[in-house]
């Protein structure tokens, strides 16, 4: 019988939406040097109840999967989508517009399903008020399935990560082909940097680089009896004690 020893290392990470925004921001800074960015949770700042307390509410739901499933299923319907958009438009559009305008952005990018439809309207109105077109884009950060509220089709372009999401955008949001771009999910620029430093992973230099990283992270060297398995969890995956 083989003896085995398992060491688990967990990474504390921020949420997908935020990480996506940070990754995209880095690309803007590389492609358009000198670019600056802000992150805005306009629903939390200027939304009405219950949407303005979404973060703690979401954390509660994440810990109670049955409740989460119920809320997701109910909200992921055309009827609720219509109600939500109308409700938010009447109650919050003006405040959203004022808030967004306060940042004086050149471009607005939504990476959250609840901040698509009404902000599109706000951006259009800001454009009318200022005489300067304010383009808005959506980057859908879900890969296999996605909530219907992502697919507000008034954006300039909608970036999606997979064929499944592209189909969903066409079906649920009636997003026209010319607005849809399948390009994958935003990932940190650090991956590209590490990949460049690694080079050919099977070359002596590549292997030496891997050993250096393993040492730096306190991982057992893969050339010994230990193997390192990288387990990645996203979406609604939770890690429990």
């Amino acid at each position, binding site marked *: 019988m083989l003896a085995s020893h398992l060491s688990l290392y967990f990474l504390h990470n921020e949420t997908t939406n935020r990480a996506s925004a940070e990754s995209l921001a880095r690309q803007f800074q590389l492609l358009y040097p000198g*670019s600056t960015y802000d992150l805005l949770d306009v629903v939390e700042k200027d939304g009405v109840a219950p949407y303005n307390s979404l973060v703690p509410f979401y954390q509660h739901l994440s810990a109670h999967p049955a409740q989460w499933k119920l809320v997701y299923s109910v909200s992921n319907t055309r009827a609720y989508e219509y109600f939500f958009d109308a409700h938010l438009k009447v109650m919050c559009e003006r405040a959203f517009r004022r808030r967004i305008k306060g940042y004086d952005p050149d471009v607005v990018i939504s990476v959250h399903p609840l901040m698509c439809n009404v902000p599109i309207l706000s951006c259009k109105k800001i454009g009318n008020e200022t005489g300067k077109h304010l383009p808005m884009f959506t980057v859908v950060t879900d890969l296999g399935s996605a909530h219907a509220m992502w697919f507000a089709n008034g954006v300039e372009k909608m970036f999606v990560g997979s064929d499944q999401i592209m189909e969903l955008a066409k079906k649920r949001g009636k997003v026209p082909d010319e607005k849809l771009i399948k390009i994958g999910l935003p990932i940190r620029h650090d991956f590209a940097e590490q990949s460049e430093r690694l080079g050919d992973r099977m070359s002596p230099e590549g292997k030496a680089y891997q050993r250096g990283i393993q040492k730096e992270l306190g991982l057992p060297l893969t050339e010994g009896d230990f193997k390192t398995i990288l387990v990645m969890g996203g979406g609604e995956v939770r890690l429990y004690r």
Partner: protein
Amino acid sequence: MTLSPLENNSETVVVSSMNDTDASNFIKAETDSLPEPTSKRGLKVLFLSSDTGGGHRYVV
């Protein structure tokens, strides 16, 4: 960038199969509707985001 063989059967192949130059050119081509920067210092980008969604909030 050249990533590992892990890219072979993953949906992330879309991202990982592009090198940095390809990806940059693609993004530039697809974002023609971006306005000219308001200053020579680049664009002011506003992300609408929230700390909901996935991500690990617990460390063991």
